[in-house]
């Protein structure tokens, strides 16, 4: 019985995937979701936190722009053979990472890095993206995976025409940009608006932070273990992962964390792009919000669990000449590790992970 049920489900899944992209249709709410206005908690609105916002003056988030971006994000026609969309590898319930270590491209080939999360991209102050920071601000970055020959393989010269064949796009472009013209620039701007609208700010941490004067105070809604973990985090991890404010668990610069001691063979990260010796082995760090659901971890997904990540930092990492001075052996005890993980789980924002305004409209 179970075997039959499994086979049935498998056939249904395969048949879903086999639906040609042009035949899939999207459904949008009569009243657009609210993307432009964000009811942010106070710690996001402090001056030090607001400085992290990378929204350019010429592409502010609008409800119509982000709505269009949402449709584009989940539209498989952005890939060369209509098989994958951005959402194929960036899965909402996993804070928009791929739960698999490496992602399958449009021809089935595997990437060599783990898909980064897309949480709070708006608050990456350097406004540089990808593990090696080769992507400029979101507007410049979003089309790189679309045209990448392994990931989506789309010909950008053809893309506006492909989308124009879908009659429902014209009104969406008109609402977003004033006229129905479809251009790659507008596709990029709409996608960037949608990505910037993905703000996670309603985790247990945020609820607790609102109830106290300082992040160093015990949060009333935390357990003792979570507060212990918070104290350990602030003392030993916050210097890098919560810099100079209380809202954004994001690093302000790429770092070599001593993942490898071999300087030649492993992925060179930023160094492969800049060719600066001091950049070899440096990688962008994703935001820690929702880190509970973004496994596997690191640029190559080498760590399957948070425990493994903390073990790495506890050991102080390997001796790479570019290892950041902040990565020192911390020798956490097992109960300290448990407390740290308990705290990290308070960064999970269940509402964000299931918010319909970020979901696949093609379902």
């Amino acid at each position, binding site marked *: 019985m179970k075997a039959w049920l499994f086979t049935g489900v498998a056939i249904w899944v395969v048949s879903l995937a086999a639906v040609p992209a042009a035949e899939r249709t999207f459904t949008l709410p009569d009243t657009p979701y609210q993307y432009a206005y964000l009811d942010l908690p106070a710690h996001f609105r402090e001056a030090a936190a607001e400085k992290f916002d*990378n929204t350019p003056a010429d592409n502010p988030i609008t409800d119509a722009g982000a709505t269009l971006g949402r449709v584009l994000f989940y539209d498989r026609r952005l890939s060369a053979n209509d098989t994958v969309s951005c959402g194929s590898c960036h899965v909402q319930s996993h804070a928009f990472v791929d739960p698999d270590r490496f992602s399958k491209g449009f021809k089935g080939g595997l990437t060599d890095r783990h898909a980064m999360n897309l949480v709070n991209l708006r608050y990456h102050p350097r*406004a540089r993206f990808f593990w090696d920071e080769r992507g400029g601000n979101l507007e410049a970055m979003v089309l790189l995976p679309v045209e990448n020959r392994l990931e989506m393989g789309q010909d950008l010269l053809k893309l506006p025409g492909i989308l124009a064949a879908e009659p429902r796009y014209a009104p969406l472009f008109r609402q977003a940009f004033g006229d129905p013209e479809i251009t790659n620039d507008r596709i990029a701007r709409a996608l960037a608006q949608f990505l910037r609208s993905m703000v996670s700010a309603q985790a247990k941490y945020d609820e607790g932070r609102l109830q106290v004067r300082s992040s160093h105070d015990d949060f009333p809604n935390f357990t003792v273990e979570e507060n212990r973990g918070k104290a350990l985090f602030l*003392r030993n991890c916050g210097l890098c992962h919560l810099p100079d404010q209380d809202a954004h668990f994001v690093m302000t*610069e790429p770092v070599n964390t001593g993942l490898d001691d071999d300087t*030649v*063979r492993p992925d060179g990260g930023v160094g492969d792009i800049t060719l600066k010796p001091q950049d070899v082995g440096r990688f962008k760090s994703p935001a820690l919000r929702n880190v509970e659901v973004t496994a596997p971890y690191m640029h190559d997904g080498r760590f399957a669990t948070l425990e493994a990540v903390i073990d790495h930092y506890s050991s102080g990492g390997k001796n790479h*000449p570019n290892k950041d001075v*902040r990565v020192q052996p911390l020798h956490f005890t097992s*109960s300290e590790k448990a407390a740290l993980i308990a705290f990290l789980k308070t960064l999970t924002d269940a509402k964000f992970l299931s918010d319909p305004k970020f979901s696949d409209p093609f379902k």
Partner: protein
Amino acid sequence: MRRVPLLLLAILPLTTAASAQTVAPFDPARPTMVFSSITGVAAGPEIVVARLMTFDRDNDGRIVKSELPERMQNLLAADTSGDQALDRAEILALASPAPAFAAAATTAPGFRGGGGGYTFGDQVSLSTRAHVEGALDDLRLPPVTHQNALAIVRPFMTRLEADATTVLVKELEGLMSPGQLGSFKVMLERRMTGQGTPAVFRTNGTKVNFVRFGPDLAQMIEAFALPVDHTKAALAAFDGFKERIRPAAADRAALVGELKDVLSDEERENFDAALQRRPLVKANGLAGVVSGVVGRDVIHGVVEGPAVFRTPRQVAQP
């Protein structure tokens, strides 16, 4: 706002607090901050060459576009010989300081990124009490247990510091005059207790942790102009003192042992682990009170961050 380069920190030996002493001439070559930044040793251009040559699949000494991952293929734009490939010499030139096209990773306008240096938190002050009590605080003990533990930790640290001070003073007695020793003890006491250190809150409620820099005590020893061997011995004594006031393995074991009736085994294990750590702080996130004399100008104000000097009226008062 009056801005003065951080170089002003170099005037620290001239602080008014030390004005009763004979002051050594300003030596710009000698760092005088009471804490020093931790720096790493970065790799050289040869590792970039070695790394890129791993992509040379046909071993012809040249990297062509098809041999590179797609994300790196833009590197071919730096081909100077026009052969649509990069050889070792070209890569070496690119990897040497300031390659022309490597300026991409810049900080977004208006944002002042991490920058600055880092230092161990326990180097900010001579005393390690804050570190030890912070480690206890992080255990999140019930209030009564916390108080009971503090009742053991504080006297322990007092004993540790007193013992270290006694040894230091004894070692210095034969090396400097009673007057010099008296002055040194006064400054040592101030540095150990943080006496007079102001706590300032910004208008938005955030706290600025001020550090009274005061004189570098090692430089104070040098400023006494003692015989060379006395100076050397006094500096060694002071270095030994700095080691002794940080709980060593035996001290930690003794302290954790004293806490046996107050803390559980797990709590004591966590406390011991926390004492062994040396958490880092951002050096440019610290602030310091500076006062002294440069030439005929009296300097008295506050250094906050890497390059901002404010006179007292420009910062919120406690």
